[in-house]
């Protein structure tokens, strides 16, 4: 081996080039990210912090907010019966919606997953289309259907059941929420059922499990990630829903979303609105963590 006279110098030069290459690469990445990074900090992170700060502020008697006398008053208010009832009502409605979606979606997803590729794609596109359709319009359609003297009411009346009067009730809100979020349940369920290794089901049948038993002991546990993911995807937006309860509940059933909006637009109690928004977001964050733990990212 011939030793180069400038071997040391070259080594330093190369190490330098390697380091420079890495630095340049990092700088390129940062430059690429910087515009959106800056945007997200200014127009997302900063607003988030402002909400947090406001939740510790005090509401003055005139309805404005004093950014002094920091306190936990707004959070204490969440324990008061009015707010508590709103929260409980929202949770109950969101749970009912989630369970209904699950019961309707599971057989549908199962059916999809066991069809031929053509039928399956057709069914999935059929589920996706309403999902892409304007949200407000989808809610409005139910308002129209359920209105007194509307199609459903006329129908029940004509078959002798009397007029249907469910608009502006919890039932109407639940129907609207199920309608809005059903695709969120179907898609992850389909993904996990589709991925199921059917040989395992065959193996269970071979080991003397009946049809229902093999469903309960094999299919259901293996598709649990899909069940959890779908449930979170439905529960979370149902909890924070605003448009659906406003249009179909007629504001009679105050839910969390509407309550927060009221605090800002009419009651002018910003600290309480801010603290509630924050609590709502915390629920979402925790749910999201559970979702990822359940392998939701892959669904």
């Amino acid at each position, binding site marked *: *081996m*011939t030793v*180069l006279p400038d*071997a040391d110098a*070259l*080594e330093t*030069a*190369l*190490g330098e*080039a*390697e380091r420079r*290459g890495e630095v340049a690469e990092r700088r390129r990445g940062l430059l690429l990210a910087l515009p959106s990074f800056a945007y997200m900090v200014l127009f997302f992170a900063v607003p988030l912090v402002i909400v947090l700060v406001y939740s510790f502020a005090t509401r003055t008697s005139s309805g404005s907010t004093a950014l002094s006398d920091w306190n936990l008053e707004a959070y204490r208010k969440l324990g008061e019966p009015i707010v508590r009832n709103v929260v409980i009502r929202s949770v109950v409605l969101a749970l009912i919606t989630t369970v209904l979606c699950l019961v309707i979606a599971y057989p549908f997803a199962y059916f999809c997953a066991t069809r031929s590729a053509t039928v399956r794609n057709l069914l999935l596109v059929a589920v996706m289309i309403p999902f892409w359709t304007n949200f407000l319009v989808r809610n409005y359609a139910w308002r129209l259907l359920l209105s007194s003297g509307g199609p459903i009411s006329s129908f029940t009346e004509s078959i002798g059941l009397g007029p249907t009067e469910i608009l502006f009730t919890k039932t109407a809100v639940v129907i609207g929420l199920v309608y809005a979020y059903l695709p969120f349940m179907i898609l992850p369920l389909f993904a996990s059922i589709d991925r199921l290794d059917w040989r395992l089901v065959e193996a269970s049948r071979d080991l003397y499990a009946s049809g229902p038993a093999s469903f309960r002991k094999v299919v259901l546990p293996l598709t649990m990630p899909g069940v959890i993911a779908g449930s979170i995807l439905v529960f979370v937006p149902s909890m924070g829903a605003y448009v659906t309860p406003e249009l179909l509940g007629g504001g009679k059933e105050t839910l969390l979303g509407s309550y927060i909006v009221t605090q800002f637009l009419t009651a002018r109690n910003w600290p309480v609105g801010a603290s509630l928004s924050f609590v709502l977001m915390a629920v979402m964050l925790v749910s999201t963590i559970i979702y990822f733990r359940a392998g939701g990212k892959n669904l």
Partner: protein
Amino acid sequence: MSLRAVSKHFDDVVAVDSVDLDIGDGEFFALLGPSGCGKTTTLRMIAGLEIPSAGSLKIFGSEVGPLPPNRRPVNTVFQNYALFPHMSVADNVGFGLRMSKTPKADVARRVSEAISLVRMGGMENRRPAQLSGGQQQRVALARALVNRPKVLLLDEPLAALDLKLRQEMQFELKQLQREVGITFVFVTHDQEEALALSDRIGVMDSGRLLQVGTPEEIYDAPVDRFVADFIGRSNFLAGTLEAHDRVCLANGDRVTVPSVADGVVSVGDAVQVSLRPERVMIDRAGAAPEGHASLEGEVATVTFLGNSIVYRVALDWMTIEVETDHRPDLDRHEVGDRVAMWWRDDAIAVVRP
């Protein structure tokens, strides 16, 4: 091309550890080793896809270590070919020429030359997805060769092909290299491929280059137990080097060995004797001819492989594998038979343990 003390660290991990290597003009060179041995990183440094942490890397006398890939006289055939899926065969092949601002007329001519060189004429307008694995391989070769590189690098060029196609492409690759006459450096973990294709082989393990030599040298005179084990199969008999040409085995027997080169091991070192299964003769106990080192043992298993028979013979201190031809004129031994084994003195190699 020459590499001097080339190293590459990824954070704390040493991927390539001070490699010295000279590859001659027009040589077909294989870097062989198990996955993660640093062979691909070495290739990527030559290609410019990684910058070495230290050392010198010269191609035709000029230092290229810190240069980016687009400023080196080398081209690469990637492991999965990395053909651009949105371009036709012709556009793929012409990509390098267009990027280096070759005049349009030249591009068209050289592209069609390269395509016919790899016998892909008539497929110019196909998309990569419409080609078979072997055809994709050819397009990848054409795409690299069209730029007239001084060195062509191939990363596991045949790994993605099935066995039959692989053998066919081995032949074609060798033919192609002879035709274009430039240096080919390829990386593989398949020892047969390395032996079949290359003029010289460099065996790597854990970032170090263990041995460089012709396929025969590597097979017949490995310097290291790892090399002997990785290329072909071998029995390893532990012992001590007593003199340049004599090893005392662990059971006390003394065997004559081909004289050991300096620098590999020295007298007094613990060594291993590498004994290839097909070089061991086997017969009934006591039938070993005079003048050869021999060992006796009991047949433990017999495996019939069609063209050959593999015996595992248990000695009281180790088990030896013997492979014999399956011929009617050779005695067949059964499990439990006492047998003798012997070999020619030049059939074995002394290796570092």
